[in-house]
């Protein structure tokens, strides 16, 4: 099995960056990292999570959809897209790696979102096993193995370096030319590292969420639960949870007048925003309770209902860490999952 020693990482990334843009997590301050384009000398973060998820690479916060020029009172429509270049994202954890599959179910469903699809086709996922999960991690609940992330190439971290496995053809094509920077090692080492990860994961405090209480077909049971009022009471209606979430994909479409043309772009939107569903005729979700409920119902009921039981959450824990008032999916699941008798 290929093994990349930690001290060889720079050389590895340098080579990888010759053929495509390479994005790696970089510490912006202690305990906080974000993706940057790799350039020689970039120090790769060893932290667990980037503050924003890796969905940005495929579903950026803003993206131009179309342009319009009005010339002599005639409209000329312009496709603003340039050719997408190949790129790779390094250090994607198991939860984020799973999130791409969830986004695919939305954007690649008929009719295919060609903007997303285009990026997806050009993007390579270099995933990374977790060695030091946080207390906020709860991916295990959704059947995600932090030790064996999905992706094109899997990096299994043993503390000194990484065991590398190509999981897809694209991954193989990427990895083969880089094999000379690696050494060959017994896959048992990889297994040992994975076991170590699983050992920690098993000790995590949020492993036993009442997942069974949720899923497709539970709308009737959950929609009118009185607890929504108390759960949403403190919600300030910001979009933090949705914007750091690797699976949230709601967007808005807007026009911007650059002076020479009208540019139609889409941008992230949040179902938590008071004006999300506002329209000329009124707003069907008037209170924060309804908006709050929508977000969690979507992730825990509607999405699985439409997608073969898969939840719209990967348990990355970003919302737990960043919610201004610490009201998040775990508290929601726990509260709604409480046995009716206990109440």
């Amino acid at each position: 099995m290929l093994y990349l020693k930690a001290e060889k990482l720079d050389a590895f990334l340098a080579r990888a960056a010759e053929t495509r843009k390479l994005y790696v997590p970089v510490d912006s301050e202690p305990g906080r990292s974000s993706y940057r384009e790799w350039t020689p000398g970039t120090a790769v973060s060893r932290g667990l999570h980037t503050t924003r998820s890796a969905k940005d690479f495929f579903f950026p916060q803003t993206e131009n959809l179309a342009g319009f020029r009005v010339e002599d009172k005639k409209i000329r429509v312009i496709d603003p897209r340039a050719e997408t270049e190949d790129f790779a994202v390094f250090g994607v954890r198991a939860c984020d790696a799973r999130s791409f599959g969830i986004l695919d179910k939305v954007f690649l469903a008929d009719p295919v979102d060609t903007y997303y699809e285009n990026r997806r086709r050009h993007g390579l996922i270099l995933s990374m096993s977790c060695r030091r999960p946080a207390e906020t991690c709860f991916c295990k609940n959704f059947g995600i193995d932090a030790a064996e992330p999905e992706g094109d190439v899997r990096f299994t971290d043993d503390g000194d370096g990484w065991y590398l496995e190509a999981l897809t053809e694209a991954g193989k094509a990427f990895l083969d030319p880089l094999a000379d920077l690696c050494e060959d090692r017994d896959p048992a080492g990889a297994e040992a590292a994975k076991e170590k990860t699983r050992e920690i994961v098993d000790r995590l405090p949020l492993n036993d969420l009442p997942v069974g209480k949720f899923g497709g077909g539970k709308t009737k049971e959950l929609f009118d639960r009185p607890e929504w009022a108390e759960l949403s009471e403190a919600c300030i209606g910001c979009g933090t949870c949705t914007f750091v979430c690797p699976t949230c994909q709601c967007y808005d479409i807007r026009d911007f007048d650059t002076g020479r043309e009208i540019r139609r772009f889409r941008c992230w939107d949040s179902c938590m925003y008071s004006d999300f569903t506002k329209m000329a005729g009124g707003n069907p979700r008037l209170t924060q309770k309804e908006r709050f409920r929508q977000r969690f119902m979507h992730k825990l009921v509607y999405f699985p209902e439409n997608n073969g039981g898969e939840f719209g959450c990967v348990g990355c824990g970003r919302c737990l860490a960043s919610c201004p008032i610490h009201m998040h999916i775990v508290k929601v699941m726990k509260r709604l999952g409480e046995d009716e008798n206990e109440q």
Partner: protein
Amino acid sequence: MRKIGVFVCHCGTNIAATVDVKAVAETLGREPSVVVSEDYPYMCSESGQNLIKDSIRDYGLDGIVICSCSPRMHENTFRKAAASAGLNPYMVEIANIREQCSWIHKDKAEATEKAILLGKAAIAKVLLNTPLIAGESGVVKRALVIGGGIAGIQTALDIAEAGFPVDIVEQKPTIGGKMAQLDKTFPTLDCSACILTPKMVDCAQNENIKIYSYSEIESVSGFVGNFTVKIRRKARYVDETKCTGCGLCTEKCPVKKVPNEFNLGLDNRRAVYIPFAQAVPKIAAIDADYCNMLKNGKCGLCSKVCTVGAIDYKQEDTFVEERYGAIVAATGYEIADVSRYGEYAYNQSKDVVTSLELERLMNAAGPTGGTLLRPSDGKHPHTIVFVQCVGSRCTPDKGKPYCSKICCMYTAKHAMLIREKYPDTEVYVFYIDVRTPGKNFDEFWRRAVEEFGVHYIKGAVGKISPRPDGTLDVQGSDLLMDEQLHISADLVVLAAAIEPSKTARSLATMLTASMDTNDFFTEAHPKLRPVESPTAGIFLSGVCQGPKDIPETVAQASACAAKVIGLLSKDKLKGNPCVAHSDEMMCNGCSNCANVCPYGAITYSDKEFRMPDRTTKTRRVAWVNPAVCQGCGACTVACPSGAMDLLGFSNSQIMAEVDALCR
């Protein structure tokens, strides 16, 4: 999408010489919403206006843009034209391509490009204009005149003659003002008091006029047609209803050394006094600063001698509140302080006097009974030097930048009168220029020089030094002869600058009327609206607006009255529809807007709102009184939520202009 018409004016060659008007019309015609774009030599002419009107009708235009001169010039013209063609007048925007384009640029390509941009900005704005309808408000048929000098008197009399009630508020115990202190008037040399006092009496006797003497304006609120004014009636310790003006008290009062302001302190009066013989109202007043009774409770003599029991030591200031449709500021002027000019030794010698003091010294009712005597020793002066432009026409740090206008003429008058009455007296006048533009003015001055032998010296006085012998050494230069002069004078008369009344500024603040840097009230338009303040319903009469002589003052006073009468004759007033308004659904009720509103146009109330989820919510929301709002827009910026916006200059309109101009 709206249908917009664009009309580009050549203004003869004023615009067309520098701006390719055809190109402007053609380019703007290609804008998406423009359905007609024309150019014409004179849009403001009747045929130009007809072109606009016809286009509005033919194309069913929703808005028009006129590329022409400044909106300050013809906005109203075009609005009226639009209205007569059935288009709301506020659907008109002007692109100023003359004052702000053709007149300031030379390069035709550049100017044309800019004109197009300005046109585009106006189109962007007019696309967001909304038809506005001016609100109406009633008119209180009563006028207030602040100041009882000749300006106020004339204005009040004219308004009263037209049948409207007028109140005069005068801070002194009598009306009459400065003119009452003058001896003779130029150029006719008739007696000032003789022509003024009958008018004062007319005021007192006119049923439509009410005089609040010894009174001040305390506060003003409201707006054109409907002002509410609080008047402070200062305690005069004499019951006006009882006092007959017999003057007995003023003779018996033991406090005799009170400087007599009517005679500018050149003699004394008593603590209880009637300012002068012909005072209107002829009612005594007690000077609380000097009266023994009021100061320490000892005396009471006047009360004892008063046969009608009019003295009332317990009197206090009282307040009157009255509503007015129009307010006239006629606050007049004061003599600027000349003691700051040490070189003229005004403080060092009693024989250096101001012209107004000279008036009193020459007046039959003055301290000397009309005989010209030196204040220091009561002797007849044989050499008199007049110094012109004292404090006028200076750099701002030295004095007033303006010309006080009346000094040249009154000095000629004084010189002439002295030479006539005392031919043994030599009179010298130091001047910078002699300014005599006025009917019979130059003739008058030439008579002083030619017939009366007054010595006019073009030059400045450098220093005046009192000599031990009581004369004054006047050191000056004669620019024409190019020599330094020393004149030994018995009396020096300073033609002191005149300045607006000290009370004018606080009054202007109350009236929300604007002032220039010299504290003269600003007129709404220096040429076309010279007797109106920019604040609607506030009018200007007399010197408070700028230096002027008596005939001019009276002319302005009557003009002002005509304007007031015009206003009071209306039953309803159309307001400016470009006012602020608050979107109740967005208003937070924070009061920021009310805090910055200079007119108190914004009030708050708790209002119940039906929410979309059928609950009700009580919220505190702002309301703008459109009749009070003047449309400055201060509130719109103070409002964080953007609930407050200004009609005619809305956030989106201004931003649309910004966008268009930055392209």
